């Protein structure tokens, strides 16, 4: 006997799938370069918005979106490896993967904001650091990407492993928000469906996310670089 319960709320699912679209788009635009490097920058800002949203949603979202619900404590990890962990959201090992992915994505966005491509693109905050550091951050941006790619491969392999070996489909719940579980498990305390969704939390998270995106793309730039740039001189030849 199976019952269907609600585990992933809609904002969480949207976050996930928008990220799935945005990360490859950022990669491809960077690889092609040329005029697309500006889109790489814009997608990066969008990913920053997604991450800020997710962090706030990790505190004010519904049950299984909250970091405290699935934080991989030592005791939870120990229980998981002994096969005694029961639950329906992120398992402790999956939770490690969630936090690792978030940390690496934050590092990736963080380095990109200050980097430049040595051609015709400079991250929106690159003016806050000197050129050698901005160049070094481009290097780290490349290195962190390799780390991100490795984690993503692991992420997909884990999903395939769960599908083929453990016979758990993880993709469908991430699409529909609903998970089928055995009826026996459904009555236990560890199979609590997602509750605590509040519109006010969603609105607040979205506002903070938008402020963050505006802040790095425009706001901070105004503070340190007001007015016209020397690159916008009205004269082709200012006297010499």
């Amino acid at each position, binding site marked *: 006997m199976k019952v269907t319960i609600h585990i992933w709320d809609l904002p969480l699912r949207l976050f996930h799938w928008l990220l799935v679209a945005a990360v490859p788009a950022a990669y491809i635009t960077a690889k092609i370069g040329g005029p697309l490097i500006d889109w790489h920058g814009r997608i990066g800002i969008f990913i920053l918005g997604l991450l800020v949203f997710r962090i706030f949603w990790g505190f004010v979202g519904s049950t299984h979106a909250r970091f405290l619900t699935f934080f991989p404590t030592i005791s939870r990890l120990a229980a998981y490896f002994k096969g005694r962990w029961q639950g329906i959201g992120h398992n402790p090992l999956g939770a490690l993967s969630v936090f690792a992915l978030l940390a690496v994505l934050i590092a990736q966005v963080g380095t990109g904001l200050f980097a430049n491509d040595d051609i015709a693109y400079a991250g929106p905050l690159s003016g806050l650091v000197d050129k050698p550091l901005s160049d*070094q951050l*481009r290097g780290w941006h490349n290195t962190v990407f390799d780390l991100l790619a490795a984690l993503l491969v692991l992420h997909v392999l884990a999903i395939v492993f769960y599908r083929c070996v453990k016979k758990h489909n993880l993709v469908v719940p991430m699409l529909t928000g609903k998970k089928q579980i055995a009826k026996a498990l459904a009555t236990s305390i560890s199979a609590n469906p997602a509750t605590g969704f509040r519109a006010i939390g969603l609105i607040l998270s979205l506002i903070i996310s938008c402020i963050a995106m505006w802040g790095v793309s425009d706001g901070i730039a105004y503070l340190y670089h007001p007015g016209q740039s020397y690159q*916008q001189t009205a004269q082709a030849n200012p006297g010499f």
Partner: protein
Amino acid sequence: MNKKIALTLLLTASTTAAIAGPIEEQIRFRQSAYSFAAWNVGKIKSQVVDHPETFNKDAVAAAANAIAAVANSGLGALYGEGTDQGVGWKQTRLKPEFFQKKEEVTVAANTFNVAANELAKVAATGDINAIKTQFGKVGESCKGCHDLARIKE
């Protein structure tokens, strides 16, 4: 006597050249050339792509001409043997493979050359959209060489 002076002068000149370091000099000149090009790329980026309201036809045309001048200046002469190691204004990032990939390098360099000269032509017309398109192609040609011959940080 004159021979002695000539010999001394020759020796002095060659020693001076050795001290100045012809390798370091090549690296320094090419780094300078690309920095100068980067300033002009920045002007076009700013006035054509980021802030088209500041577009100044003459300033952009002058910048495009400067980039084309760099492309046409014969930069290949600054990539002598051994110039994958050494410090110009800073340590060079030329990949050692540069010298094994002569054909690919030539293609990449020519792509930049053609794109830069085309940009100068288009910039002279003052058509901002055409400039923007061609400017993107120049950027791609820069990347072509960077990916091929430049060590990543």
